[in-house]
């Protein structure tokens, strides 16, 4: 236990020394804080319309302007940020949960089971899973819960491959043999010994998966299949803005910049974590 703790403290120290990743982490925290707490400091709500003023450019009343229905863009971006981050984190958790479990079972049991389970993953890899998310969203209704379940359900493949690889290399190590010799139950070996030791590349992959899922979600919202109005996500704001960009460019530019900033931060953090935990890792 002591040993593994020092591994993580070392990793954290290495991570904090990486300036780019550290700055990205700070900006990300600020973005999250702003989107969580920001709406409480603004007197407008994300759905309150003001049809009299309509779309206005940024002014003192509305810092980032308003959309065609007179809704304050700043608040809407904050809510959009909330949704995007929420879906990113939740869908990644779903993907991790399925992937780690699947990969561990396949790697631990090995042999024929492993072969079949991984063939299935290979097969799924080859399919255009975006279509399935689209169909899933159409079939089960377009709401947030379904959105992150659907996204999580298609994004677990790589996690399972990484975990399996780790488990395969770990399961013949002495400490697992020792645990087996002591008569530890397989389920306990998996959860107590295998997963904690196999987790570090999975963590790195997860931080890089979050931005990917945010892009994916925005993509769906852009097509009108994600979050439904009056709720908004960054993707749906970009979509709305792109329809009106000739007249009201700020409706496009602000959501785009926030989304891009968010993705930049997450990617830099992911890269930083990779370098901190395992510089040799290829992701």
């Amino acid at each position, binding site marked *: 236990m002591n040993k593994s703790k020092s591994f993580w403290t070392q990793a954290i120290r290495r991570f904090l020394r990486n300036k780019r990743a550290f700055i990205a982490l700070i900006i990300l925290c600020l973005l999250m804080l702003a989107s969580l707490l920001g709406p409480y400091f603004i007197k407008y709500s994300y759905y309150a319309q003001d049809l009299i003023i309509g779309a206005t450019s940024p002014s003192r009343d509305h810092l980032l302007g308003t959309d065609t229905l007179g809704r304050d863009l700043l608040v809407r971006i904050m809510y959009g940020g909330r949704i995007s981050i929420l879906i990113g984190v939740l869908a990644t958790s779903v993907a991790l949960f399925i992937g780690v479990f699947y990969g561990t079972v396949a790697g631990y049991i090995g042999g024929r089971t492993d072969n079949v389970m991984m063939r299935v993953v290979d097969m799924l890899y080859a399919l255009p899973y975006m279509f399935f998310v689209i169909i899933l969203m159409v079939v089960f209704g377009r709401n947030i819960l379904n959105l992150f379940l659907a996204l999580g359900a298609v994004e677990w493949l790589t996690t399972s491959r990484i975990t399996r690889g780790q488990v395969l290399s770990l399961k013949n190590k002495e400490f697992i043999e020792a645990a087996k010799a002591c008569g530890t139950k397989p389920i306990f070996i998996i959860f107590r010994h295998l997963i904690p030791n196999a987790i570090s590349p999975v963590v790195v992959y997860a931080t890089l998966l979050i931005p990917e899922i945010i892009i994916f979600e925005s993509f769906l919202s852009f097509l009108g299949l994600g979050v439904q109005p009056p709720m908004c996500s960054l993707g749906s704001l970009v979509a709305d803005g*792109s329809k009106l960009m000739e007249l009201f460019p700020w409706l496009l530019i602000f959501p785009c910049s926030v989304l891009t900033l968010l993705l930049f931060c997450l990617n830099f953090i992911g890269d930083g974590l990779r370098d901190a935990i395992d510089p040799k890792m290829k992701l």
Partner: protein
Amino acid sequence: MIKYTFKRLLAIIPVMLLLSFFTFIMIHIAPGGPFDTERKLPPEVMKNIEKKYHLDEPLLKQYLRYVGSALKGDLGPSFKFPGTTVSGIIRESFPKTMLLGVCSLILALIIGVTAGTIAAYYQNSIKDHISMSISMIGICIPNFVMAPLLVLIFALYLNILPVAGWGKASNLILPIFCLALPYAAYISRLQRGGMLEILRQDYIQTARAKGMSEKRIVLIHAFKGGVLPVISFLGPALSGILVGSLVIETIFGIPGTGRFLVQSSLNRDYTMVMGMVLFYSIIILLLNLLVDIIYTFLDPRIRYE
């Protein structure tokens, strides 16, 4: 090799069967049907329509009927666009999507491989940092963000390229660029990583020691090994580009296949959805197979039994 190809081709059959079955069931249990309209049709009319399209039969029977005709190459009529067949729509629109996709992939390859090779050769120099920063931008900015921004700049403010449309070569520039950029970025990272690993190998040292020209070492010996990760990424890249064109086609008003997929699943246009999913899946499965085969030619270390 031939045996391997044959085996892989055989493996496509069960995948397609399972896939078509799941899609069929899912799309049919979705609430709503293709003939739901604002004003309800009289029940007799509805019954006749359902009878015409065999929608009144049990699902399994419908599915078997569908598979039977699909095997003969008939994907059925579109429910929402009267007078058209799914095969006809695909035949007309897919070449456009494919043109867009292939051009984007080629552009992504050219940019990505060049940038990655330069970055790897001049590791940690300013060239490396610049190309890797640009690649970070490419990875971080999704194409549906890039596309409207570029339209705003090049079409609306600078007025050099058309906003949207199809038919002229200038219409292709922005969509191809938007589709290619994220993949170019990813490819440049892969190429850089692959090259770096090769450049450290002993045989590169040997080549240098024997006085081989630097150009030849990098462009022939290191390049050959370094490009392998890129080749194995080609399959996923092309399928990603084909899917990504859903959005790009919507933004630029390109009459390709992508738009039909979203629209038809919202419309519950059963035959269209099935046709699209099956068609895209088979294309992607075949492309992946092709990439795997190319891979064996490039990397003699890999042998499929």
